């Protein structure tokens, strides 16, 4: 039976490998700046709205954003960062 410390070390190494990006991934991200092109999931609904032209206005984007809203986010409040 493997020693508990060895199991812990193996588990830790697996956790680290799963939780962090490899150097290759980091390089890939830096070299391919559109890899996570902004807003793709949001604009999907804009592009697929029936009966609209291909032209997308700022109003279309605002409505698509509202429709695709994930819900009230957990995020730091402005007051924790800045004072008026």
């Amino acid at each position, binding site marked *: 039976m493997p020693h508990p410390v060895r199991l812990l070390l193996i588990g830790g190494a697996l956790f680290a490998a799963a939780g962090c990006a490899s150097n290759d991934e980091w390089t890939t991200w830096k070299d391919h700046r559109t890899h*996570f092109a*902004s807003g793709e999931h949001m604009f999907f609904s804009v592009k697929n709205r029936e009966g609209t032209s291909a032209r997308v206005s*700022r109003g279309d984007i605002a*409505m698509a954003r509202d429709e695709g809203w994930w819900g009230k986010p957990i995020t730091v409040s402005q007051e924790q960062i*800045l004072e008026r």
Partner: protein
Amino acid sequence: MSGSRLGLLAGAAGVALIITGAAFAAPPDDRILPAEMHQSDKARTLAAKHGRALRDLSAEIYHCLPWVETRKHSIGFYKPRHVQDDRRFLSIRLYIEQEPSPQFARLSIEQRASAMFSRYVGAVLKRMTRQPAVRNDDTIDGFTVILEWLKQVPEGGQRPVHETIAAFVDKVDGESYLSGQLTMRDLATKARVLGWDGETSVGALKLAAWDDDFVSTFRVKNYQPDPTISCRQ
């Protein structure tokens, strides 16, 4: 339900859509903290003096970076919490709408913060200082650029969690960057950058930034900005 009643409802819905569409044509007025809501004379004076520049900044972000969102009171002459005196930084807070990427999520928080800093801080700094009156105002002590993004796609009805960084750039360093004396890498070294995972502070972050021209090259497919707005780099 009678046909005439259905027609009335459809008409009302149509009017509501038109009104909604019209309302989305310009950034909401509440994106800027009103001058009178700043809590020092210095801040109120700055906000009143540069009100036009703040409105232009809000409009430019709204129309030219449509994948970015400003929220209520996102723009103003705020005092960073960590400074002692009444030092006033022109500040903006942006939510960046982007597709949550598993690859991006696997990066360390310093790497994600470096990527976002590289992509947005310089570009936003240029837009914050479009007006010479702002850039040349020695009573502005610096600039704060707060960036937040969705950490990962929420699962099973859970609330979404945002990651946030706040980059505080002293005026002299901002000016050195804008005039080409500092690179983006230097700017990241000079700036104080704090991070949050949701509501939890992760403290000061050491970033390795680089030049990223995403903001000046990315175009939302088929997006037509308001023709009255000039989108410059």
